[in-house]
């Protein structure tokens, strides 16, 4: 045995080990190229790409007795012979055709979990493996085959991976990436129905059968749950809800701070609108008012966005937001609106992004009422059903707290317009029933017009409440974050930023502790129990 041989052996071992360095339990897979490209005339390789979809029951649970094969629409298909030799895009029936030279041996068809379209409209959506650190795209491969003078049909099906009503350990759930793409395709088509030349910014979706970090949108990426504890690949409303966040972010504006939320929550106005829009949007895309979310393999969760009875109804309720938006959209006769998506789309894309206020039901409704096709009184009648007063501007001027049971001064006015320095700017944790819930009143908003151009120092100083207080501040101009103070200094926060004379700004003041630590949930009619107050100043420097 020569040294060179041993060195080669070592190199091979190193290579294969690297491929499986996730641990000894995995099978190393080494790509071996064995394809020989033919020299004959081109032959057609055609067929369909489909995926299995497991339907949901009304409860939201997966229905393993209702599995259908559905076409993988608009996805990329490749013929691979050592490298990519032909590319096609499937049509709405999942059909593709690629040309491969006769005499080719060992070619295979690869359906990629990717939709690309250039021009107008355009999009680029990829489903990536969330368990990989290097960003690998999911694909579905045929076995290798030869071409010898005749066209070939190759139909590919991505299987759901279930056996009966379970997913066995180690099952390959090939359908998942294509099911997710299918819902995103429906969402894009829904937007294209009112904006035919929409340019969709590139979107990465992360999924894996181990992903249990939640289904959420963040920073131009959507994460979809895949762990068998909670699989979301067939939960179309969940996917459309998250895509709705992408839509609002990309085509409108979303000042929501996100976080955890549940029906009945009393939420920050930005969160309530964003989540209510997401729920309503998912029902619009799916043409199905029942939002369904399967949990594990046996149970589920559903919300009927058409139901107008909301727990803790009001402008701080995602339920009220979704109820109003869906009533504007749908054709059911429980209200006088049957508008479809046009007007909602107009307001979302044209009016809301330009408002100097933060995004909320107020900025949406104010713009909506200003559309020539809308009768304001009709809108007000819908709002009254949700215990919301008539809205006449983006800043909720004159709007009461409706049925809100806590002390009014702890949440109103929504935008404080007192001159600097402002005393008793109070953040409350009473509407935060769990970690990472942005409840109403945790953030307080100060609206002002810059008196002059130049640098200003903003300071928030504790005056009462938590002895271990961590105030934070965020400054927005037309919804864009232009300054922030997020240090951990006790009882004080400060930052310096430049202002433009005459411009409108909104300053958010927040007691960080309330949002990020679990505190007792204890709402009281006599006023907030968990309350920390600050004096907020603005000084030219």
């Amino acid at each position, binding site marked *: 045995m020569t040294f060179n041989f041993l060195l080669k052996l*070592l190199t091979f071992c190193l290579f294969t*080990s*690297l*491929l*499986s*360095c*996730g*641990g*000894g*339990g*995995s*099978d190393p*897979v080494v*790509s071996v190229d064995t394809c020989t490209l033919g020299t004959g005339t081109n032959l057609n390789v055609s*067929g369909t790409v489909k995926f299995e979809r497991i339907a949901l029951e009304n*409860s939201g649970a997966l229905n393993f007795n209702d599995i259908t094969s559905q076409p993988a629409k608009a996805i990329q298909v490749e013929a691979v012979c050592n490298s*990519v030799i032909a590319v096609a895009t499937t049509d709405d029936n999942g059909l593709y055709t690629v040309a491969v030279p006769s005499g080719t041996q060992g070619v295979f068809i*690869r359906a990629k979990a990717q939709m690309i379209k250039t021009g107008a409209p355009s999009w680029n959506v990829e489903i990536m493996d969330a368990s990989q650190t290097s960003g*690998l*795209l*999911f*694909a*579905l*491969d045929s*076995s290798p085959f030869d071409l010898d003078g005749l066209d070939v*049909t190759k*139909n590919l*099906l991505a299987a759901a991976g279930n056996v009966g009503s379970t997913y066995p350990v*180690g099952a*390959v759930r*090939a359908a998942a990436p294509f099911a997710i793409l299918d819902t995103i395709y429906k969402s894009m088509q829904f937007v294209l129905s009112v904006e035919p030349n929409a340019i969709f910014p590139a979107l990465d979706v992360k999924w894996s059968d*181990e992903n249990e970090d939640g289904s*959420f949108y*963040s920073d131009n990426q959507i994460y979809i749950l895949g*762990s068998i504890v909670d699989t979301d690949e067939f939960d179309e409303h*969940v996917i459309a*809800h998250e895509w709705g966040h992408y839509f609002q972010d990309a085509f409108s504006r*979303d000042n*929501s701070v996100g976080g*955890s*939320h*549940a*029906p*009945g929550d009393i939420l920050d106005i930005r969160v309530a609108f964003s989540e209510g829009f997401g*729920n309503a949007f998912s029902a619009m895309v799916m043409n199905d008012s029942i*939002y369904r979310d399967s*949990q594990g393999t046996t*149970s589920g*969760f559903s919300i009927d966005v058409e139901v107008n009875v909301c*727990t803790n109804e009001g402008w701080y309720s995602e339920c009220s937001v979704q109820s109003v938006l869906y009533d504007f959209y749908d054709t059911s006769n429980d209200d006088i609106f049957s508008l479809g998506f046009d007007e909602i789309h107009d307001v979302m894309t044209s009016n809301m992004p330009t408002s100097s206020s933060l995004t909320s039901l107020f900025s949406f409704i104010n713009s909506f009422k200003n559309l020539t096709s809308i009768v304001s009184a009709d809108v007000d009648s819908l709002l009254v059903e949700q215990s919301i007063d008539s809205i006449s501007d983006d800043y909720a001027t004159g709007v009461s707290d409706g049925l809100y049971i806590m002390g009014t001064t702890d949440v109103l006015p929504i935008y404080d317009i007192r001159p600097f320095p402002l005393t008793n700017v109070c953040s409350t944790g009473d509407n935060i*029933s*769990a*970690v990472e819930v942005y409840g109403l009143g945790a953030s307080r908003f100060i609206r002002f017009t810059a008196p002059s151009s130049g640098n200003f120092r903003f300071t928030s100083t504790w005056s009462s409440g938590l002895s271990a207080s*961590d105030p*934070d501040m965020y400054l927005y101009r037309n919804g864009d974050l232009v300054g*922030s103070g*997020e240090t951990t200094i006790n009882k004080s926060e400060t930052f310096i930023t430049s202002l433009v004379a005459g411009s409108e700004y909104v300053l958010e003041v927040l007691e*960080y502790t309330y949002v990020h630590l*679990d505190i007792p*949930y204890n709402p009281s009619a006599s006023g907030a129990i968990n309350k920390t107050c600050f004096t907020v100043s603005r000084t030219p420097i």
Partner: protein
Amino acid sequence: MKKIYLISSILALSFLLMGMSKPIERETLPTQDAQKPAERKNHYTKPHAGIFLDYQRPEHLQIGEQLELRLNFKVRDQAKQLQIKVSVNDVLLLQSDSQFEFDTQTNKQSSVVILATALKEGAARINLDTTILVEGRYQSRSFSIPVTVGDPAQFKSAVTGVVISKPGYRVDKAQGVVSMPAVESSE
């Protein structure tokens, strides 16, 4: 000399591989333990049932060791009933009850204690399927609690989130894909 070089290389590479196999600790502890981030990151999540869970788990167990895990649940005001179903994967043997039910009309906080024994090395999972009854409708939320049994460097762990390849999946790095086998037909 060449043999010494070879043995040294193998040892060095072995250590290198061990290092590369070391799991990356993901943030799975309850968020109360998390440090404040440098700046606010917005995660727009899906809606869930108003069920909240708080717990403190051991990060590691040894084979044969018993896990005693106290789970503190909190539910929304409107919840009338809380049901909890507990299951574990094959790394653990569940020794406590697998189902619990609480009347939450007056008391919104409930606790259960899970007892389980570590059977083998691996990434243990305690899975919780929880349901509340709100205004006549059931709402559910799932949780999964990870615990590592044994030396995490010795096995592929779902806890690590690092998986380069696994059975059924073919990694084609040159093409940048993770491919899965299709069910094929020609008609």
